[in-house]
């Protein structure tokens, strides 16, 4: 039999006959069950024993699908029988495992119709565990090998298998949860489908109300979110453009400093900006007190609400627009501008008629990014929202508040998803092929002209104060952690750091007595586990997208980039809805956090991979293939070693994003698995700003350290230049000698 088939057959049987079929309550990485009654215990028994020990007869047919591939012994790969058997076994097995999982749940039959048909069921089953996981993986790869044997992608087992794996993962962890939202939005409280209830919830005044236009009632959350996102998108784009112009087209001195600002949003948990703003402009904030002391302006709560959120988001997302627009502004070919100048346009005319129009798609792109980020932002509205309801926080309160209305949360999530997906779709369809700023491979020499004088002063006027404000904010963040009680008692103290991060030596060695250690370690472990997985699946996806041709590639790409457009709160709600009950029961575990991060951050890995893989000449792959290497060997020996910068980037970004994430996380944390960000938010809600700020600064430091460490470690690429000991003559001389 074919080696790969044999391998996956062994895996399939391992899952069915040896490992516990159902999920173990203790956790994915706890192996106590091995000594606790396995294999006969009903909770830990493998699938095949469940049939006999616990009368779970519906698990028996799985063995049929696992026996089928044995019929392949002695058959060649190009035998049509070979492909068909694998297809039947793989597809049938997967379908059957899924079907029984969805049909039989904790309370017996899941569907009333099945109960009528078969009579009530005594037995119940929990979420799928290791056994089911491995068996399903076996079926999945039977299926892909069957497809490959039918001749797809030149019969390349590795490539078809990778495509199958990515589709299965994206299907289970992105599409399935989103569909669950849709389904629960359509259900009423009793769990029955009720479109009328959906419509009532959907057209709720609290979502679409327009009271703020006529009276002093507040508007619906959807309008609030939309207004906020549009103004933040426009604001960040304008400011980002000003920054980009200052850096690329003026004689500004501290350009390096400005560029350093772009790192900040990457390493800053989003709500930290909101915190700093409270420290400045809150009722007991420095600016507020200064104003009331000196000018007699009474301290107010004006910062809570639209002004505060807008301000915080502007500070948080301007650097992102800046990052995007630097590329856009630099991407305008200097020769176009030089051409305009030689055609007697002055600097202003050149800018207005050539440079700016060429940047238009990039500007639209930056706007849409800011729009999506603002829509999805959860931390700042939570901290600064006041009475200004936005969708992302409303979703949260619908779930955790007194109402605990999953249906309402689902409806709100749908509305939010509608906005971000439209923006995402617009970005891809409308702008995707409309970039003027591609720098050609041909040496495009020339320099960008400087901006006209008036414009220079304008962009200075916008960018410099804003940069100064950003610096002030970060100084506040550092400083705030060392102050007793902000606004009241400004004496310096280490109290907050001690209460969060104290360590004492006890009998058993070091004791991590600080209150933050628990969430800190959890965060590091979860982020550390998810980072390589994220990078891995991201790069595989990028490889498939850049290097392989297959049917349905466009939808495949859309699906993999989709999670970028799904706001964290929506992912959080959908995971709660989808993974709270069998067959996939993950809530309350660390695994769900890891999975959440993998699929939230996957687009980062995909983008990093696509960017650097497109720069690798495709003939390198082809050379390897014609030299007899398989595609798997080619990936391992040629592509991966050349992709090291991309791997590092993907690793660092997914690690850091896992640390700063809050929106999805806050739904998924549990007592055992608390994350740093949700712990900090908890402190903020208790008005314990000192500790929150102190913890945030520690996180920022950790992330800075992680970024610089990894860059240092993998930064030195293996390019063994020979010493200039006369061994290498100049290329010119050598070509003559040759």
């Amino acid at each position, binding site marked *: 039999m074919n080696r790969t088939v044999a391998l996956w057959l062994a895996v399939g049987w391992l899952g069915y006959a040896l490992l516990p079929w159902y999920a173990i309550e203790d956790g994915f990485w706890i192996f106590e069950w091995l000594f606790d009654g396995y294999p006969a215990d009903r909770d830990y028994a493998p699938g095949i024993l469940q049939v006999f020990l616990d009368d779970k007869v519906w698990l028996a047919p799985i063995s049929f699908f696992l026996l089928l591939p044995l019929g392949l012994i002695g058959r060649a790969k190009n035998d049509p029988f070979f492909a068909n058997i694998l297809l039947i076994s793989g597809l049938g097995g997967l379908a059957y495992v899924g079907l029984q999982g969805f049909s039989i749940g904790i309370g017996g039959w899941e569907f009333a119709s099945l109960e009528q048909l078969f009579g009530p069921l005594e037995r119940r089953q929990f979420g799928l565990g290791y056994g089911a996981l491995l068996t399903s993986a076996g079926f999945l790869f039977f299926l892909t090998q069957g497809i490959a044997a039918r001749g797809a992608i030149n019969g390349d087992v590795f490539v078809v298998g990778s495509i199958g794996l990515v589709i299965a993962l994206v299907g289970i962890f992105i599409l399935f949860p989103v569909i669950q939202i849709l389904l629960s939005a359509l259900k009423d409280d009793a769990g029955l489908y009720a479109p009328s209830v959906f419509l009532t919830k959907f057209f709720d005044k609290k979502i679409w109300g327009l009271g703020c236009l006529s009276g002093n009632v507040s508007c619906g959350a959807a309008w609030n979110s939309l207004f906020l996102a549009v103004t933040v998108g426009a604001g960040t784009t304008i400011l980002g453009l000003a920054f980009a112009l200052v850096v690329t087209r003026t004689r500004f001195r501290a350009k390096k400093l400005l560029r350093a600002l772009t790192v900040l949003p990457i390493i800053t948990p989003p709500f930290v900006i909101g915190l700093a703003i409270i420290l400045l402009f809150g009722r007991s904030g420095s600016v507020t007190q200064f104003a009331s002391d000196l000018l007699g302006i009474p301290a107010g709560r004006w910062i809570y609400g639209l002004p505060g959120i807008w301000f915080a988001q502007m500070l948080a997302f301007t650097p992102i627009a800046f990052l995007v627009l630097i590329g856009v502004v630099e991407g305008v070919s200097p020769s176009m501008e030089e051409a305009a100048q030689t055609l007697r346009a002055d600097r202003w005319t050149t800018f207005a008629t050539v440079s700016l129009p060429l940047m238009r798609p990039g500007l639209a792109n930056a706007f849409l990014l800011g729009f999506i980020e603002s829509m999805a932002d959860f931390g700042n509205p939570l901290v600064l929202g006041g009475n200004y309801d936005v969708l992302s926080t409303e979703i949260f309160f619908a779930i955790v508040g007194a109402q605990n209305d999953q249906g309402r949360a689902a409806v709100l999530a749908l509305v939010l998803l509608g906005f971000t997906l439209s923006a995402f779709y617009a970005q891809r369809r409308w702008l995707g092929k409309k970039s003027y700023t591609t720098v050609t491979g041909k040496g495009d020499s020339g320099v960008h002209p400087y901006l006209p004088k008036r414009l220079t002063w304008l962009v200075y006027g916008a960018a410099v104060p804003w940069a100064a404000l950003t610096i002030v904010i970060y100084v506040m963040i550092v400083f705030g952690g060392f102050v007793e009680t902000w606004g009241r008692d400004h004496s310096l103290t280490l109290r907050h750091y001690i209460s969060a991060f104290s360590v004492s030596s006890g009998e058993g060695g070091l004791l991590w007595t600080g209150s933050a250690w628990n969430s800190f370690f959890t965060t590091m472990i979860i982020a550390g586990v998810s980072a390589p997985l994220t990078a891995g699946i991201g790069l595989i996806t990028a490889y498939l997208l850049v290097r392989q041709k297959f049917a349905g590639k466009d939808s495949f790409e859309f699906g993999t980039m989709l999670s970028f457009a799904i706001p964290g709160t929506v992912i959080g709600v959908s995971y709660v809805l989808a993974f709270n009950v069998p067959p996939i029961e993950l809530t309350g575990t660390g695994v769900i956090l890891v999975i959440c991060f993998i699929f939230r951050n996957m687009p980062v890995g995909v983008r990093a991979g696509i960017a650097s893989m497109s720069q690798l000449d495709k003939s390198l792959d*082809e050379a390897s*293939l014609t030299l007899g290497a398989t595609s798997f060997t080619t990936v391992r020996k040629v592509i991966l070693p050349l992709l090291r910068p991309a791997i590092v980037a993907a690793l660092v970004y997914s690690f850091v994003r896992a640390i700063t994430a809050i929106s999805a996380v806050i739904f998924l944390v549990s007592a055992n698995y608390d994350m740093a960000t949700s712990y900090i938010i908890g402190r903020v809600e208790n008005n314990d700003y000192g500790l929150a700020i102190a913890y945030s600064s520690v996180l920022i430091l950790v992330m800075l350290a992680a970024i610089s460490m990894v860059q240092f470690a993998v930064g030195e690429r293996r390019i063994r230049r020979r010493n200039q000991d006369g061994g290498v003559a100049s290329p010119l001389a050598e070509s003559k000698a040759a």
Partner: protein
Amino acid sequence: MTIASKAASVSFDAVTKAFGPVVAVDQVSFRVEAGSLVTLLGPSGCGKTTTLRMIAGLEMATHGRILIGDDDVTSLPATDRDVSMVFQSYALFPHMNVLENVSYGLRVSGLAKQEVGDRAHDGLELVGLKGYGDRLPSELSGGQQQRVAVARALVLEPQVLLFDEPLSNLDAKLRRRVREEIRDIQQNLGLTSVYVTHDQEEALAVSDRIIVMNQARIAQEGAPRELYDEPADLFVADFIGDANLLDAEILSLEGTEALVSLGDIRLRLPARGLETGPVRVAIRPQAITLRADARGESLRGVVRKATYLGSHIEYSVETPIGELFVISGDVARPIAKDSDVSVGLSQQGVTLVGS
């Protein structure tokens, strides 16, 4: 030298390759004999590279059969074919040194370490790069990189060795050297090689046989001399060497000879199976002689342009039968612009072409 040859023939049987609605290769059939070097020649977009990539297994034929030796490899992917290829960009792995590059194919084929080392060293010696093993590709000149690419392909002792425009990244002087080296190695080892180029001079220089492709089909196949002397159609006549293509008429046929009227001139040319009636005559620029002393009986013309090119002079001459492009080796006695000349045709280099 331990590098041997397992040369096998290559056969295409009515092979078609379509990319969606675009047909890149249309019903192409040919056979490359074992141990010979065949060139696929044609303008860009004619399907020659796609044909080469189908031999390699990098593209899969949409219809038809491909055989290497006696084995049907039509549905076999590149990995499983005993074919190696020298890429236009060389495609040397930049993170491996020269020796690692050359031994890559041997290593992934699972050969013993000792043999991998021996054969890789032999390969480097064969292309004259002994001692360069631990350099990185980026530390080599273009010509050296090219030879590493050849060595890397050779050491696998493939049944067929493919060259995809291997000289296009070299400067003009180096090109002549390297193509001679490639031809020497191919002949010494008796390799079956398929070579793609758009440079007709290169094709004439290295090939046993040439397959000229145009618009996804084979325009003509033959030995270099056949293609030059007896082009099958206007495209081949024009593409291989320059040619003046003139309207003419076959007045009568006498056995294998045709009496042709070209303007006022009468010519006797091999008929090449053509019927009486309108026809075209292809005249090589070198086959036309110009004489400054215009004598009575022959074709008259006026020199409109004269370009001195060192080894020869190119003239553009206006005549009653049309504008003629002439190459003259007589640099010692240039003919001035606007002079009247008499135009003569030599025996060689004038041929009938069906239209």
